[in-house]
């Protein structure tokens, strides 16, 4: 077990190097530091010195891949790619293009992101499982047929509409909750409510349909026949036997996204003006702040890999058949 996890973590290193290489290619090769400077300082009224100054202040003035002038190891270490990669690995995100400390921002904004993402995940999971169980219990009936069709219809609606309609109906027409905004502490609940409802409703179509497939797959297996032959009721068979098996893919599927919850949701946060990492990213995209985008890409990759490792571990916890080798 320990050896397995260590190996997985070591295996993550080449992947993160790969991620860095891709982002480096995108941000420093296709798009040079000079381009960035021009973007930020404006095209027309900049002087050559101002550009030089901007590049230097962001530490982008080193050679990109290879420093021919330096000696020994420095040939490699005194390069942009090396320092950038090193900083990322140490989670030192540096300053944004507008001069803010990214690390500090990330720390501050994680809280609000989680305040939305965690309840959204939990309520969504509960709703999806509930609907899927209902559909499975009434399988081959009209409830199942129409239920599944309704799920497909829900899936076919753009998530933007859920947000817009949610805001419009609950916030504007009924005035139950504030349309957007955020304050910390427990009073966050009333700001969080709407985004959570929207995200649950937006996810239930595809989620419930997927879980129903998983449940039905279990229901058709031999051990269900054994359970019925024992004299268990359909309810007991469904909950005790089928659900327990279907929970394995459901739970492990959830585990992989748990770490990425820190990143927040781009759409929800920006629509509801929640000061989390999602809206931070969107703002950075809109203002073309590449330093932030680059940091978020890296952070997302790290969290995704953590999620993958957690998934493997969670398999051994919920599935007695799996042993880590």
């Amino acid at each position, binding site marked *: 077990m320990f*050896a397995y996890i*260590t*190996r997985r973590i070591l295996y993550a290193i080449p992947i993160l190097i790969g991620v860095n290489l891709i982002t480096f290619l995108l941000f420093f090769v296709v798009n040079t530091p000079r381009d960035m400077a021009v973007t930020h300082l404006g095209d027309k009224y900049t002087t050559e010195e101002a550009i030089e100054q901007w590049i230097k202040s962001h530490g982008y003035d080193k050679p990109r891949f290879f420093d021919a002038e330096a000696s020994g190891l420095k040939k490699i270490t005194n390069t942009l790619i090396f320092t950038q990669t090193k900083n990322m690995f140490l989670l030192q995100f540096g300053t944004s293009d507008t001069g803010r400390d990214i690390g500090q921002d990330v720390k501050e904004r994680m809280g609000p992101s989680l305040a939305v993402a965690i309840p959204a995940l939990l309520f969504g999971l509960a709703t999806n499982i509930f609907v899927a169980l209902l559909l499975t219990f009434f399988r081959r009936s009209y409830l199942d047929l129409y239920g599944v069709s309704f799920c497909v219809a829900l899936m076919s609606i753009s998530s933007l509409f859920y947000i817009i309609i949610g805001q419009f109906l609950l916030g504007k027409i009924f005035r139950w909750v504030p349309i957007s905004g955020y304050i910390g502490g427990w009073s966050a609940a009333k700001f969080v409510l709407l985004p959570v409802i929207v995200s649950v409703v937006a996810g239930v179509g595809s989620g419930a349909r997927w879980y129903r497939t998983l449940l039905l797959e279990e229901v058709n*297996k*031999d*051990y269900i*026949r*054994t*359970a*019925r*032959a*024992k*004299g*268990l*009721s359909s309810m007991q068979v469904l909950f*005790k*036997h089928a659900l*327990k*098996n279907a929970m*394995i893919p459901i739970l492990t599927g959830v585990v992989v996204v748990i770490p990425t919850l820190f990143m927040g949701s781009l759409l929800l946060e920006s629509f509801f003006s929640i000061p989390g990492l999602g809206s931070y990213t969107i703002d950075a995209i809109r203002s073309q702040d590449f330093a932030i985008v680059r940091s978020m890409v890296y952070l997302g990759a790290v969290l995704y890999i953590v999620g993958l490792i957690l998934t493997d571990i969670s398999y051994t916890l*919920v*599935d*007695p*058949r799996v042993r880590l*080798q």
Partner: protein
Amino acid sequence: MSDPVLQVENLSVHLNSQQGTVYAVDDVSFTINPGETFCIVGESGSGKSVTAQSILQLMNNAMFSEESKIKLGETELLNLPEVSLRKIRGKKIAVIFQEPMTSLNPVLTVGQQISEVLRLHMGLNKKQAHARAIALLASVGIPDAAARVNEYPHQLSGGMKQRVMISMALATEPDVLVADEPTTALDVTIQAQVLQLIKSLQETQNMGIVLITHDLAVVSQIADTVAVMYAGQIVERASRDVFFEQPKHPYSQLLLACLPNLEGRNKPLQVIKGRLPDPRNPIKACRFAPRCPYAWDACHGKEPKLLPDAQTQVRCHLYTEKDHIKPEIKARQVASSAVKIRKTMRPLLQVDNLKVYYPIKHGFLKRTAGHVKAVDDVSFKLYSGETLAIVGESGCGKTSAAKALLHLIPEMQGHIQFNNENFSTVHGKHLRKLRREMQVVFQDPFSSLNPRMIVRDLIGEGWDAQGMFRDKAKREARLDQLLEQVGLPADCKDLYPHEFSGGQRQRISIARALALDPKLIICDEPTSALDVSVQAQIVNLLKSLQSGLDLSYIFISHNIAVVSYIADWVAVMYLGRIVEYGPVEEIMRAPKHPYTQALLAAAPSLDTIQKPPQALSGEMPSPVNPPVGCHFNPRCPHAMPVCREKYPAETSLEGDVKVRCYLYEDER
């Protein structure tokens, strides 16, 4: 005699499926007394499993006819509401299914699954149920039950799982046990153990057993009463002794004659022509008539009734139309395949020290920590025109050995001299060229043919690979010739595999192998997925091809009867090694190695009616951790101290037999 515990009357079942209504069971009646074992025997599609499952109404799509009645004591089961039915399921009537691997819930412990029944039907609390579960596991012969009760199904072997299923079924001491092919998925030595267990538990609990099986040999050992099913109907019912002494229905007679054995090896096997009628449009006549050698007008005209004829009930016009004179069936032809004479002294295939070691990667750097020795130091010779059978239970390495010979396993080591070439070191283009000479036929007729290809392309695949028969007309001519050789109609060239029956697919596989004119065909259990009547056809085909084309076979099998019929030489494998090797007559008549003896004794055969199967204790250990010394020593009744120290060397005995056992050390 006590009252029957279960009565089935006029049971007719329709199954609704997407392909239409299947008339699976038609007018089946039988009664079972306490302590009686009632065997329903039939080939696949005969409706025997549907009959079994109807008793507890476990199918979702089944429709019962108005006249159908299933009575448990005085209770009529078919119109019981689901709620009352649940009180009977698992309590009064218990079921064991065929696949122990999939019939247990993988995420619940064995104890939880047994306790569930006890708490539901016996009113025990959690603690009592757990204690009872341990006692039950011990009673079905699971060693160390107190620890095993907390294990999950995947931690148990197939035989153990079936024991758990049995303990679960018998936990409530039911009146009736329905066993649907309970031993089909198990190895012969384990099958013998499980049958013995069922028999002994029946004696203590005095329950009635409905046993569904396709294996007549199993029937001959365990049944009190036998019912033969064909196309949804019972065609014959009799007590066991009467049935095996004098089967009445032509189908029963043919079924028994299909079974291969050592004595009949110089004659072709009896076969049943044709195939089962389509269960979607049942014929209003004798359903066996189209395949029956005795059939005459009456058989095609009206449906026979199940009539009692002294001790036997039989559904056949032969016994009602007294004035009809039964035609003689032509005596079986005696094949001309007399004693084979070796033409050359140089073997076609010589295998020395063949090894297949799968590495076990372990720890942090994935270093190879050990090996699974699937095939360990196997050597043998095969002369052209002869058949070598490799016999053993699942996990003994016989399939790995076959695939290693074919260069399908990269982990293969050792020396293979084939057709005057060093076959073990060739690779690339040269290997592809040489593959022509050595072909293969696999077990599963469904997965061995690409479902997306038509017969023409399937058989011609080897020609494309080897660049043969580029000329279209020549190719077509050769194709026709091959189809005729394997007994397929010439107009089937544009059909897909799913349009054929299992036996016909196996013929296509054989034609594909023959297309390259190989010298050797490796047959990996080619008949074990087939019904006995079809098995007979394929075995006959293989034999006639061999004598006609001077082919050699390596015949991998677990079926002793088939091996004794088809093989010239036998190699018995246990845990990766050949423990005994010799001419088939020697091995079958006087097995030397204790394992061979046990294997032959455990295999049920019709010659040993009444004699309970000889069970070998224990199970085959894992090849990851084979026992020190002789691998067989933990199960061997003759084990000596020396057996636990070192693996025995090969001893040559009289009659070309070679054996690896310390019992014969002195005779070296």
